[in-house]
């Protein structure tokens, strides 16, 4: 066994490497999250955590399940495709607990102008008015029904 005559110091060195590798495996086991690599080079559980974020907008299906009367009015008018929460704001809390959380009625003098104020930048076919000339600051609901605003289609009050 003359080949291994001077080898013991190499074996000791190799032993140190094997030991370091085992330590690395143990540390890695505890440091890397369990779901890392489940779908790719990231923590698989992160997808579920992001999906668990609470919602604030209930979605128009939730509104329409109770407010069918408004839906009927809206379906005939120009605002048929405008979702409830586009004007009324985020109301998931109201949908979860309708009796204790009651939404504030939007101010039509402000909220209608956001879309319908005249601007050369808006598409030409979109109905636009200059609020100061058109209503002199009066709330739009004085004349228009917000859920079905067209004057010709029976939307006038």
């Amino acid at each position, binding site marked *: 066994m003359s080949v291994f005559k001077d080898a013991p110091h190499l074996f000791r060195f190799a032993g140190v490497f094997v030991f370091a590798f085992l330590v690395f495996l143990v540390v890695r086991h505890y440091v890397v*999250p369990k779901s*890392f690599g489940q*779908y*790719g*080079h*990231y*923590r698989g*559980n*992160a*997808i*579920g*955590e*992001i*999906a*668990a*974020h*609470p*919602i*604030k*907008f209930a*979605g*128009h299906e939730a509104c329409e399940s109770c407010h069918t009367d408004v839906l009927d009015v809206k379906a005939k008018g120009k*605002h048929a*495709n*405008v*979702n409830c*929460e*586009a*004007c009324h*704001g*985020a109301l998931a809390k109201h949908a979860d607990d309708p009796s204790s959380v009651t939404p504030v009625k939007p101010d039509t003098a402000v909220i209608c102008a*956001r*879309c319908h*104020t*005249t*601007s*050369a*930048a*808006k*598409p030409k076919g*979109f109905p636009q008015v200059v609020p100061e000339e058109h209503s002199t600051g009066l709330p739009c609901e004085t004349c228009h029904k917000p859920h079905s605003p067209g004057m010709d289609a029976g939307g006038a009050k």
Partner: protein
Amino acid sequence: MKITRRQMIVLLPAAAVAWKYVLAGTPEASPNYKMTEHWWSMLIDIPKCIGCGNCVRACQTENDVPEGFFRTWVERYHRSDWLMTESGEVTANPLTVPEVISPDGGKEGFPVATDESGKYFFVPKLCNQCADSPCTQVCPVGATFISPDGAVLVDQTYCLGCAYCVQACPYGCRYIHPVKKVADKCTLCYHRITKGLTTACCEACPTGARQLVDLKDPKDPIHEFLKTHSVQVLKPQMATGAKVFYNDLDGSVR
């Protein structure tokens, strides 16, 4: 409180079952949702956008986006030398730089435009949910990724906040959250779309200029729309595999 042996026999297996779910970690929000059945994206119909800023406000409400930062924002373009004759012929210098404004991300709408000349249009922007996104490729720790259903997400418990991804995004869609100090971006309302709802911006859009699309759903109207309309993505030369489709996009948009 005294527990009899009979009660103990019932309670122990129940506790064992409950403990299994405690250990399982995050609650599965939507058990019927299968990631492999979806490939989410969005369609922006430019001619329908009126620049009301509803989407920006809805996004900030839904996702607790800090003041002054945006996951989605709206830009108004003005090409002043753009002219269309009565016969429909368009003359415009392609080298003229358009005037672009986005006051507070378009959150409170835009100032009234009085200059009738030229062509105005609004461009809502958001994360393009790229299929080959540069932002996920540069992350040194695997904290940002493309989910199996096509949303580019950030694992905020794993992110270091090094901001490589903020630099890598060619669309400027990422920012470092000022409080959490980690990368933040549009998740395509992942918490909503996995529950069968549409995104907050699509829900709040009054004209239908934004539409959530599922490219893996054969019944989704997007397939018909892509065949019949002139649809583009932003910066196609970057080969990011951007999935937010813009209908009737002007060539000057960058």
